């Protein structure tokens, strides 16, 4: 079974590496509106993507695109959501952070992919232990 060893889970048409990214930061206080917006969009996306199998198709849904457009402030919220319920958030995480911490042996294993991202988030300070 050939698997992509580096960049597994990477949206293959993501932004080039040269695009500067701000460092990961924990959500600041006063971001209730961001959290509420994320939760609303996440709920919409989950409903719209429930019966889809093609992750690329899921990622093109408007709520998901809007979450990606939120940028780094969405990262801790996505990671919290991954902790609560594993789902196909990997495309968005990689698109925003330009990182992929998923080891090759975890590729395609949703719970292990989620674990890898959660561990990454803790190391980056995006997520509290």
């Amino acid at each position, binding site marked *: 079974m050939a698997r992509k060893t580096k960049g*597994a*889970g*990477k949206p*293959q048409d993501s932004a080039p590496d040269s695009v500067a990214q701000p460092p990961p930061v924990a959500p600041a206080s006063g971001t209730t509106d961001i959290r509420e917006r994320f939760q609303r969009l996440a709920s919409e996306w989950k409903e719209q993507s*429930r*019966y889809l199998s*093609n992750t690329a*198709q899921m990622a093109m849904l408007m709520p998901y695109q809007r979450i990606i457009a939120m940028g780094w402030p969405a990262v801790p919220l996505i990671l919290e959501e991954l902790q609560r319920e594993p789902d*196909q958030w990997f495309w968005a995480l990689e698109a925003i952070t330009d990182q992929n911490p998923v080891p090759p042996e975890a590729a395609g294993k949703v719970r292990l992919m989620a674990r890898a991202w959660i561990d990454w988030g803790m190391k980056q300070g995006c997520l509290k232990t």
Partner: protein
Amino acid sequence: MPQDIIPSQAFPRLTPHNHRLTSPASIDYNCIGWAAGDVEHWWQPGVFWPIQARPGDYGIEILEQLFKALGYENCGMDASLEPGFDKVALFGHPLYYTHAARQLPNGQWTSKLGKAEDIEHDTPHDVAGGAYAEVVQFMKRPATGRRNTGGQENERGG
């Protein structure tokens, strides 16, 4: 899960009489994995896919190439039961593949519905017409009695 919860907008051809739920919902695998007999991976080009895929290629062609790599060959629009053969139905369009269903030895079909449940349905077309568009082709291979998970037989619910 009661059958009437599956939304008619997504599956306008499903009725209480032409399908049966056969598993709980699971995020662990998708319809492509299920059609290939794997309940441990979410199959996706660029993530977990047994062949190389061109960047940005998520269309029906890459799904056909996948099943060719698994030993299947195109059999047009022939959905009939052929003893001694495994058969799959591919759904989608050039931009995105949407679904794959697998024929069971009794002639019924089994589908994993995205992140939701597995169902057994009478014909492949029962899950078409909505979220998955239409069946675009069938593929078959000589029955091997094995699946594609490193030798593990996965027939849960199906």
